[in-house]
């Protein structure tokens, strides 16, 4: 009997980010318009495995999902043991642009979730000409913090378990238990301090209030989609952000939370397929 194989292929890309050599893991499937997917804080590209295996998407899009440095199977840079990991707007933007440039992607679409959604807003502000379209999931210019990140990395609290337990509430109650727990499993596997380091970008360095007004959707279309059960980036946060961006398309997704692509892939599909259809049939 033939083996049952998922369609995506995983590879390691050698590239430099900010002049530092990196080895980035990514998976890809499909052909056509490049669609680069950015995972949430403290997680990895597995969140997009359902998109990577969806023939309705991969027949027109070359879907690529990479693990940020320090995440998943991307190794941290040499000497990581001598620094505290902190993601910044600059380093995150550089990683995405390095990935796209190294693979010679021609005007890719970038879709990111949570911190990935926030950095997509920064791409729209600062690098719109490089992209065909941008999709920000669970994104806003700013969100009110709801816990102290000091709990995420200390020897008397299991980092993986506390990260997963904290974010478990961001998953909609409607999400299938299997998908809920797969989403949590990825959080349990993050490296020590990595989720906390990602949130430095989210909370300290990546405040885009006022700056989102500079987004010009005529140069690059922008789509915002947020789950109604996301109390971290609330629908109100996303709608407030959208009000400042003429031409943006915004949608609040019913029965979804902060991890739409992994917590309920079938439900997310209902929302993302029309967006991708619009992008594919656009100019």
């Amino acid at each position, binding site marked *: 009997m033939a083996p049952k194989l998922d369609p995506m292929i995983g590879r390691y890309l050698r590239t430099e980010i900010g002049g530092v050599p990196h080895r980035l893991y990514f998976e890809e499937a499909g052909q056509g318009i490049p669609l680069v997917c950015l995972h949430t804080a403290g997680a990895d590209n597995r969140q997009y495995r359902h998109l990577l295996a969806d023939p309705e998407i991969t027949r027109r899009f070359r879907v690529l999902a990479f693990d940020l440095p320090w995440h998943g199977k991307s190794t941290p840079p040499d000497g990581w043991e001598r620094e505290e990991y902190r993601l910044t707007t600059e380093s995150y933007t550089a990683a995405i642009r390095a990935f796209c440039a190294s693979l010679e992607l021609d005007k890719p679409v970038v879709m990111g979730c949570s911190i990935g959604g926030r950095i997509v807003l920064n791409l729209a502000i600062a690098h719109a000409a490089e992209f065909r379209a941008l999709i920000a999931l669970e994104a806003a210019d700013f969100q*009110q913090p*709801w*816990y102290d990140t000091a*709990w995420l990395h200390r020897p*008397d*609290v*299991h980092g993986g*378990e*506390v990260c*997963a*337990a*904290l974010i*478990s*509430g*961001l998953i*909609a*109650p*409607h999400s299938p238990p299997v998908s809920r727990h797969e989403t949590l499993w990825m959080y349990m596997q993050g490296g020590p301090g990595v989720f906390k380091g990602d949130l430095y970008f989210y909370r300290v360095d990546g405040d885009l209030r006022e700056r989102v007004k500079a987004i010009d959707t005529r140069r690059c279309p922008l789509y915002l989609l947020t789950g*109604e*059960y996301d*109390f971290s980036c*609330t*629908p109100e946060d996303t709608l407030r952000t959208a009000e400042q961006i003429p031409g943006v398309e915004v949608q609040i997704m019913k029965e979804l939370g902060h991890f739409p692509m992994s917590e309920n892939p079938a439900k997310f599909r209902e929302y993302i397929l029309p967006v991708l259809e619009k992008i594919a049939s656009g100019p």
Partner: protein
Amino acid sequence: MTPPDRFARLPRLLAADADLMRRGHWLTVECRIDIGAEPFFLSISAGAIANLDRGLRLMRSTAFTFRAAEEAWARYWEPIPKPGWHDLFALTKRGAASMEGDLRPLLQNLQYFKDLLALPRLAQGA
């Protein structure tokens, strides 16, 4: 059934959940949960409820307290809670609940406590 009456069923609800007790087996702690104006003093031993005292106990010392209004608990315990009422931190973020004291045992066993305090969802009706 009032929210405090529902919470009073917690020992029976946990006793029926062997998996949750297994996940809490490293946990022994005294904590206080306020259901509106009514305090409950919860003694947890190796993941099981050793004792649940309902009502005020003068000068009772606990590691931490989690408190929310009756309405918040009632909405949190709906079979499918509405957005913003579906998680303990959703409640604290909206100002409908608060926590204080030594939060370390809470954070060390956070999923256990989330699941424990959600058990009254199973105690619907009369």
